[in-house]
């Protein structure tokens, strides 16, 4: 989209943490104020850079979780036990602290309401984050594009944004969950890894020409993309964002 192509080199800038939202015992949403933020599109990410006193640096990419909202940018971060950056962000940062970030980045794994649908979003674990940005952007725009979300997590405790997804359901948005490891008593929804059979039940049919966005750990994304192609969906209509072996 020529008019929205970003021109110019990306530069690092300081963002201030203004709010922390605890989503689960290991997931927090950090809301930053980024001076001069030009706005962003759902699905884009930022690069975050941390520098130690001896100049050691570590850099990571995090999907933007929020719909565009002035200079506010929300990142939902899962604390990885062996992580180098995520434990610092979730354990050490306090409101008022600053970090370096650059963005918004990305043009491929992006959805705007004007692009229409039907839209099928398939999330594995923390892969829900950029897809939630799409759902939030859709809601903020009052858009009613037919949108389906299939969200896979290990257990109910691992689900993020549950209440909000509940509240946004309807008006063209349907949400289905699958809990792969542990289900609560009385669970009637899916209880296994995403497979072709599940996708065939949940996704629009190929004839409807849906647009797919799938995000999560690399093996998850790989399995979903393969299954969708086997179900007859057009490979070019399937956009993937792999998070690597650990999912972020």
């Amino acid at each position, binding site marked *: 989209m020529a008019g929205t192509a970003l021109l110019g080199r990306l530069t690092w800038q300081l963002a201030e943490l203004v709010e922390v939202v605890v989503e689960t015992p290991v997931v927090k949403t950090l809301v930053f104020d980024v001076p001069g933020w030009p706005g962003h599109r759902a699905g884009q990410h930022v690069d975050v850079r941390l520098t130690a*006193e001896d100049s*050691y640096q570590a850099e990571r990419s995090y999907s933007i979780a929020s719909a565009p909202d002035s200079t506010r940018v929300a990142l939902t971060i899962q604390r990885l036990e*062996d992580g180098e950056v995520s434990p610092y962000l979730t354990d*050490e940062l306090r409101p008022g602290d600053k970090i370096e970030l650059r963005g918004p980045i990305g043009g491929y794994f992006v959805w705007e309401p004007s692009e229409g649908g039907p839209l099928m979003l398939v999330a594995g674990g923390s892969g829900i984050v950029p897809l939630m940005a799409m759902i939030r952007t859709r809601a903020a725009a009052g858009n009613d594009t037919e949108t389906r979300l299939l969200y896979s997590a290990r257990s109910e405790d691992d689900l993020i944004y549950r209440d909000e997804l509940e509240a946004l359901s309807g008006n063209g948005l349907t949400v289905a969950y699958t809990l792969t490891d542990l289900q609560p008593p009385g669970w009637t929804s899916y209880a296994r890894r995403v497979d072709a059979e599940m996708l065939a039940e949940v996704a629009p049919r190929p004839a409807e020409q849906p647009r797919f966005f799938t995000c999560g750990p690399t093996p998850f994304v790989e399995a979903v993309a393969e299954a969708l192609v086997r179900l007859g969906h057009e490979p070019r209509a399937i956009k993937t964002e792999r998070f690597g072996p650990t999912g972020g």
Partner: protein
Amino acid sequence: MAFVSRGFRGRRAADVDPARVPPGQYVTADFPVLSAGPTPHTSLELWDFSIIGELEEPRRWTWEEFRALPSEEITRDIHCVTKWSKLDTVWQGVSVDTLLAGIETSAEYVTQYSDGGYTTNLPLEDITAGKAWVVFAYEGEPLAPEHGGPARMLVPHHYFWKSAKWVRGLRLQSTDEPGFRETNGYHNHGDPWQEQRYSGD
């Protein structure tokens, strides 16, 4: 300098003897997996290791033949150009001197070549006289595919990109032929103690 994040240290080992750490490196207890392409999975039935190029008769070992060669335990520090160093890594492997024993060659250079197409170059004298091995085990276990198994090169006195994973042979050459990384930005020699990371360093 960039903005310093209060309290950020990263996952680096403390209490390290600085004399063991080349300039610009940080010691880690992890073993990061870095790659240039998909992990090859060559079955041991099809695997072989060859010495080719400027020698009278190319040599070739099957996996059984290779494993029947005298091998040794090697403990060395390794240094990756991406700035992590790992101290006292323990390997099991066959010395390159064993593989080259009795070979007469006028070659001064060697190219390591691997499954998947990766190559890396060195002067021949940098992999002889006890400086290099073809290793098949790490910390007592068979070398995992993502770490270069069934066998990889171990050339600890150069940055670790010069220890080819999934190595299948050595090509002896009279001319130096920059390899996969050396042709695009990485230093042709790659001595960590002189911080020879990039072309022109």
